């Protein structure tokens, strides 16, 4: 089959996103229907592409004589594309109920859908420059979403978001340019150019710049501050973009540059690898500690994301295929778990107006489905067996033990510390919601109840996914392994 279809996952959301803003829809319902159909269609196209796996790359144009703007679908791309393809329809459905009283819905849904295409673009990029293009574009199209509320707080968050992201992207671009000037045009291939340039410290510097640049979106300390601030955006944005699409684009880009551009052969055992490992290990603990200290529920989850993104980066920094597979499994599982947690937080916020953790005391009896979902996802993120978080953490630990060395040991300790902290910042809240009767229990109103079907369906789908993944992740793990190893 022709690989021209690779452009579809980018174009469909782009066109339908613009249509949502421009077409005169008769009612909210018909617009929602159009939106959901478009998103579902795109997910099916993605599914079809993944199943048929068009080989080779599709060059759309040349930016200069030697710089192609090209798309391709390889193992790593499939993993990321599969994740967003699964989560986007679920989140879109959730947003309908969340945003139902909002005035600027067309703008919101327009950009929300366009983001789908841009994120798919990141996943489908065939070389660093193309990826850089989509990466920058992703920052731009998410700006209106972060700024959605339009109040002072969101404007401040947007400013932070833009400065951090643009600054990071500039660093990455510097790194990429250094690479291109040194090694000529590069396409993403597993192993990268490492073997040709072993011990080249100019390239190591280029790598580190790239990593720091992409480290902004993947919220590595000290470049994380934009993420908790961006929690002012409506929850569907925080849940899908700031727990999955945007931040994982950062992680994805970091993996692309590590394994597919510079290559583990170049990096393994160097100071560049050690710096990434230390940064990741530190951020793992730092994010969890901050999450424990934070009382605002959405910001707590954002800090938890900071920590968990570094789990993935830590797996990546091991520079082994096992480490990468383990990191990627955490990318998938964390995506599913964190989006669920955010959905729960969002439902509480949107139905009851409660934003802080202590305010949720006793709320579990009023909103049992929401809080049971929260507890299950909390246990999953903590790493309880039979739920998916356990498997990815186990894989990370195993690959670190296999890699050995002081930095891997530091990472293992960081992972275990963070696991305990995760239990501490998620589970007591879930338990207090059920077992404690708050002093002002009369303040509950009839609005404090479980949401409607548009939110319950996403909950159910996500919890079922977690259970299935937790109990039977073997096929998925094997698939991940063959997707990565297959491209060796």
């Amino acid at each position, binding site marked *: 089959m022709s690989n021209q279809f690779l452009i579809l996952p980018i174009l469909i959301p782009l066109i339908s996103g613009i249509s949502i803003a421009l077409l005169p829809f008769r009612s909210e319902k018909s617009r929602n229907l159009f939106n959901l159909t478009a998103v579902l269609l795109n997910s099916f196209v993605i599914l079809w592409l993944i199943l048929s796996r068009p080989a080779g790359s599709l060059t759309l144009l040349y930016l200069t004589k030697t710089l192609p703007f090209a798309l391709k679908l390889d193992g790593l791309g499939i993993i990321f594309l599969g994740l967003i393809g699964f989560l986007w329809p679920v989140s879109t459905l959730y947003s309908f109920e969340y945003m139902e009283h909002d005035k600027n819905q067309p703008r919101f849904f327009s950009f929300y859908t366009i983001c789908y295409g841009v994120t798919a673009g990141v996943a489908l990029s065939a070389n660093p420059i193309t990826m850089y293009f989509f990466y920058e574009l992703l920052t731009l199209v998410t700006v209106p979403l972060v700024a959605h509320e339009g109040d002072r707080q969101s404007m401040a968050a947007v400013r932070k978001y833009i400065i951090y992201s643009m600054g990071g992207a500039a660093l990455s671009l510097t790194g990429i340019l250094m690479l291109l000037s040194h090694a000529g045009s590069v396409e993403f291939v597993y192993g990268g150019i490492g073997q040709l340039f072993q011990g080249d410290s100019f390239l190591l510097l280029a790598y580190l710049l790239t990593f720091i640049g992409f480290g902004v979106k993947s919220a590595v300390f000290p470049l994380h501050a934009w993420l908790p601030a961006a929690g002012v955006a409506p929850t569907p944005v925080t849940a899908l973009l700031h727990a999955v699409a945007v931040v994982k684009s950062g992680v994805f880009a970091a993996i692309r540059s590590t394994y597919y551009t510079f290559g583990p052969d170049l990096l393994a055992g160097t100071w560049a690898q050690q710096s990434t490992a230390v940064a990741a290990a530190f951020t793992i603990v730092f994010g969890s500690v901050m999450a424990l200290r934070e009382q605002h529920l959405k910001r707590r989850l954002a800090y938890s994301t900071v920590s968990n993104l570094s789990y993935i980066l830590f797996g990546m920094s091991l520079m082994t295929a096992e480490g990468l597979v383990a990191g990627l499994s955490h990318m998938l599982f964390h995506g599913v778990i964190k989006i669920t947690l955010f959905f729960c937080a969002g439902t509480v916020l949107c139905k009851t107006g409660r934003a802080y953790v202590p305010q949720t005391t006793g709320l579990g009896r009023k909103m049992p489905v929401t809080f049971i979902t929260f507890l299950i996802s909390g246990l999953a993120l903590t790493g*309880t067996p039979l739920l998916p978080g356990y498997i990815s953490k*186990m894989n990370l*630990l*195993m690959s670190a*033990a296999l890699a050995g060395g002081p930095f891997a040991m530091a990472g293992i300790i960081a992972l275990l510390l963070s696991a305990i902290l995760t*239990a501490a910042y998620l589970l007591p809240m879930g338990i207090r919601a059920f077992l*404690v009767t708050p002093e002002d229990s009369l303040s509950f109103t009839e609005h404090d109840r479980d949401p409607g079907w548009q939110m319950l369906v996403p909950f159910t789908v996500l919890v079922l996914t977690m259970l299935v993944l*937790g109990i039977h992740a073997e096929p998925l793990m*094997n698939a991940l392994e063959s997707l990565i190893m297959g491209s060796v």
Partner: protein
Amino acid sequence: MNSNISLLFPILFPMLCGIAVGLIPALKDEKRRRVFVLTALSISFLLTISQILLPEASLYVCTLAPKAEISFAVDAVTRFFAGLIAFMWLMSGIFSFEYMKHEKNHNRYYCFYLLGEGAMLGVAFAANYVTMYLCFEWMTLMTLPMVLHSQTEDALKAGMKYLLYSFAGAFAGLLGIPFLVRFGTTLDFIPGGVLDMTLVQGHETLLLGVAFAVILGFGAKAGLFPLHAWLPTAHPVAPAPASAVLSGVITKAGVIAIIRVIYYQFGAAFLRGTWMQTALLCTALVTIFMGSSMAYREKILKKRLAYSTVSQVSYILFGLFLMNTTAMTGSLLHVLCHSVVKDGLFLCAGAIIYKTGKTDVEELTGIGKEMPVVLWCFTLCALALIGIPPMCGFMSKWYLALGSLSSSIPVISWLGPVILLISALLTAAYLLPITIRGFFPGEGYNYSALVKKEPNAWMLLPLILLAALAAFTIFPQPFLAMVENVTASLM
């Protein structure tokens, strides 16, 4: 070994019954619930016994992810612990029927009581590290609602402490898996251990460190220093029959896990004679002494018993860490003894609370006049725990002391028995005054106001049975035979 689906019955049956109690509205009726729970517990007991009597079997259930298989098996350790677990659960369950009358949320209580039994049996039946870890974690979660039962602020704090300490311990325990995958041949439990010595070469210190962390981690459930602090907080806030299983049985989950880690994964041969063994023995001795002295100073009866658990379970661990046959025999005997006795003591405390509302040791003056049978049971259990011959504690401590003396570890070999002796004296000092003041209240006691408050048969039956068992070791042969069966497979 034959693959046998019936291995799942003892684990799943109580869990399903637990879910039924939690969900089926018809079981909200007190009488029906009592019949149902009693039947469920008895059938679980019979199912477990039948697995113990049947020939060794194993069962592969499923694979969660590569290197994470779920499978169960029956071996000597399983046989030894599973019967004990199911029996203790039955005893405390029978006691609960009357006791729980003064608590609320009965269905939730029995739901998690049964779920906890299933998970605990899962720990005993687990055939590999991952399965054991899974059951271990879920047991923590399933028993948490028992600690939280009263829903007071105290209970919540205790519950959170329980949760976080247990999770911290479990995560340290998890550390073993990646390193065993790297340096071992399999995660299945194989007597003698699974380490591949050619791979281990040059990484001994790392592995000893990992084993140390793992054992301290699983030791959290057994109240081992330094992760012991949750136990005296969490056990007493649960309803008395739940405290009894928490203290008497669930602490033994830590013991099972440590036996598996030492004798079936890392291998005693690898750990024997290392700095790690000495460090572990020191931790156990510290815990023994600390637990006893804290119990001596504690005024609330149930808390005193919980501190006593901290101390007594470390007797068991001390024996395990010595890694010789005699000490091991002592350990396993003490598993039996402590389970029976501590269950009995907590149930006595529960009977007293239920009938009189008294929780403080000072208030118990003359209690033997009001509830003679209960206090007699208490006294028998106390004597057994102190180790007065010919009761059960005597035998186990005798073997522990012998095992310690026969080991060639400097200082510890004689310090161990000394600390055991001091702790036994402390045990006498914190338990016997209750009996003495209970039966001989002294001159100031107002006999005219005396009312008999003996509880009814539901409460007395398990008490008497447990006290009789504690004293029953006048005929130690069957127990010794059971224990030798296990040590033979370990050593």
